[in-house]
């Protein structure tokens, strides 16, 4: 590869790869989106806890039933 070829190669590479700007920034500010994402996570977790009231009610009902009718516990175990 002679000097002419090297120059030609450099020219082709410059055409193919646009120059990287030293102060390149995204088109929009991404930080508000990060903050929104961080805020959404605890809200979603709290929502799932609120939805679990039904499961807690079921568990409470089971415990109350087993305490009221302990004779049914062996039958439960038999079918488990």
């Amino acid at each position, binding site marked *: 590869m002679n000097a002419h070829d090297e120059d030609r190669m450099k020219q082709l590479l410059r055409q193919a790869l646009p120059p990287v700007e030293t102060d390149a920034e995204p088109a929009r500010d991404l930080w508000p989106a990060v903050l929104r994402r961080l805020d959404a996570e605890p809200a979603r977790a709290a929502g799932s806890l609120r939805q679990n009231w039904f499961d807690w009610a*079921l568990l409470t009902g089971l415990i109350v039933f087993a305490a009221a*009718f302990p004779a049914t516990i062996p*039958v*439960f175990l*038999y*079918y488990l």
Partner: protein
Amino acid sequence: MSTHPYLRAYLAGIFVTTLILPLILTAFIIVRLVLQLPVPIERGLIFPMALVPAAWGLWNMIWLASHSRTHLAIGLHGAIFPFLLLPIGATVAHCFGILSFGSSSATWFQAIDVPYALIVPAFCCGVAAYYLVWKYIVGGLNRVLGIAV
């Protein structure tokens, strides 16, 4: 963790019942051998010890196979299971003479009388228990084993 998903589903399914089996065996030894109560409990062990664990594993495999089509939550899938288990268990128990039907109550193990009026709420409690166990324990195991969708 993409290999043998049905094997992992089966293992996750039998986990709970496998943990409870030693408790049932312990209760059997205490009732039958230590206290020497005349309760024919050994005849009733076939269903909980031989059939139920395999059935739980197969039920979890069915959930894995059908979830892509049904999108049914695993808790609801588990809550359907007692509707299948109760008639099978009652049939097995009746055949082995540990469940008899009286005029006002059903008798398990020739010792435990459950009035018919109590069977429906007891069954509802069983459905609720299955819902919770499948949602939190079997579903959690499915996530741990990488087969939860």
